[in-house]
């Protein structure tokens, strides 16, 4: 096998575009009249700051129009040791974008010998969303949240994006997806500056529960099937995932105690 192409830089997606264009995902050729609601869509994800960093959470439901596509998909991904991405929108392109983002960050780190700054990572994601614009115009919208721990500034940070790749840093919290509005309303009342980890986990579950209550496409906690939302913490020490039993305990307290 021949190795070594024309591309000499540090970006994986650019390397693909130059040396392996057949591998670059391209959904823009999807017919204009294609009903994109027939494809699985991820629903509600959120991110919030707490005393040690950021929490990123998402429910597990994917829908195709009014049908359930999957009850246990994952929408929160660790893109490297200190950053997380949560996806909402068309699941196929969104999951692929998260996968490329992860490879992109690792690739840069290996080629350059040091990781990108958190701002640099967010900017890269913004470019990837912009490149998806033609597909988004045909209904394959991908609107992720990006969050991480900024090792230089020693703080958690989070960003939301719009379909054109517009990048907006949020000071406290953000939620997106079909139930995002309800989750944000919930967080608006419960979130305050510098909350502890336990409180953060609780209000994240509360917000997803509120979203699931109002939005039929959001999954929430499914005690019957034992399917729990994904909740990831990102701190100076790295990324850590809340266990199902932690989430179950908190959820039972929420529905039992009224909270």
């Amino acid at each position: 096998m021949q190795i070594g192409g024309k591309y000499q830089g540090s970006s994986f997606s650019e390397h693909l575009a130059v040396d392996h264009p057949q591998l670059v995902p391209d959904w823009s050729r999807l017919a204009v009249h294609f009903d994109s609601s027939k494809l699985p869509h991820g629903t509600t994800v959120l991110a919030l700051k707490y005393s040690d960093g950021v929490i990123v959470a998402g429910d597990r439901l994917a829908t195709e129009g009014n049908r359930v596509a999957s009850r246990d998909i994952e929408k929160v991904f660790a893109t490297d040791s200190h950053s997380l991405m949560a996806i909402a929108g068309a699941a196929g392109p969104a999951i692929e974008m998260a996968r490329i983002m992860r490879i992109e960050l690792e690739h840069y780190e290996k080629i350059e010998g040091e990781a990108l700054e958190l701002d640099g990572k967010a900017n890269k994601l913004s470019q990837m969303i912009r490149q998806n614009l033609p597909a988004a115009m045909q209904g394959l919208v991908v609107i992720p949240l990006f969050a991480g721990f900024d090792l230089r500034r020693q703080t958690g940070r989070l960003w939301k994006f719009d379909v054109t790749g517009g990048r907006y840093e949020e000071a406290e919290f953000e939620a997106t997806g079909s139930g995002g509005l309800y989750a944000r309303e919930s967080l608006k009342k419960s979130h305050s500056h510098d909350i502890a980890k336990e409180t953060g986990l609780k209000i994240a579950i509360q917000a997803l529960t509120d979203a699931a209550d109002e939005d039929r496409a959001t999954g929430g906690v499914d005690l019957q099937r034992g399917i729990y939302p994904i909740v990831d913490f990102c701190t100076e020490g790295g990324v850590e995932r809340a266990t199902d039993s932690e989430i179950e305990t908190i959820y039972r307290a929420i529905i039992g105690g009224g909270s």
Partner: protein
Amino acid sequence: MNMPFYVSPEQVMQDKAEYARKGVSRGKSSVTLEFQDGVVLMAENTSSLSKIGEIYDRIAFAGVGKFSEFDQLRKIGVRYADTKGYSYSREDVRGKALANAYSQAIGDVFTREMKPLEVEVIVAEVGETSLAGHERNAIYRIQFDGSISDHQGYCVIGGAADDLNEMLRGDYRADMSLGDALQLGRRALQRASDGQPQVSPENLEVCVLDRNRPGRKFTRLSTDELRESLGSD
């Protein structure tokens, strides 16, 4: 009529090999050793430019010779591995395929180009005990003419390679602790730079492929960690 100037192919190859060998032997040596938890790669390096690098989850690279040339090979390896892992799966990225690809590329330059690459590289892969068929470690050495060889336990590249491989044949033991492997590696590098003062932790670049780490097995040891592992001597 102008007669083309004739040089026999044997002579051309011999000259190129001699040129490349000289280039490689000017640089310092690099040692790769298997130990109980994986593979450790060591090089004497006083600069901040790395001679050892991460390629993929279980694969590391070490180069000696001309920095710009082997660093280019390292980057090509990262691109090759990430592209392969993206189009197939992470487990499909294997050291053997990469070593073969390097062998092709370096061999091609040796036969086609006027100037051969003045490098020698190591591709090391740590085994994954939880994956059937992927349990064993692997060390491949690729020389300036593209010749490739696989090694068990240890391998030295660079100017003093023959001498040091001979030394390790006697001193290497399987299933050493990391500390013992580091001591042995340092002794070998010390011998390579004879006449020099002691090879201190500050002048050592050490990277480990640690089987017990989840995901990416590659780590770079800091000078402090090295000092601790090597003791005060």
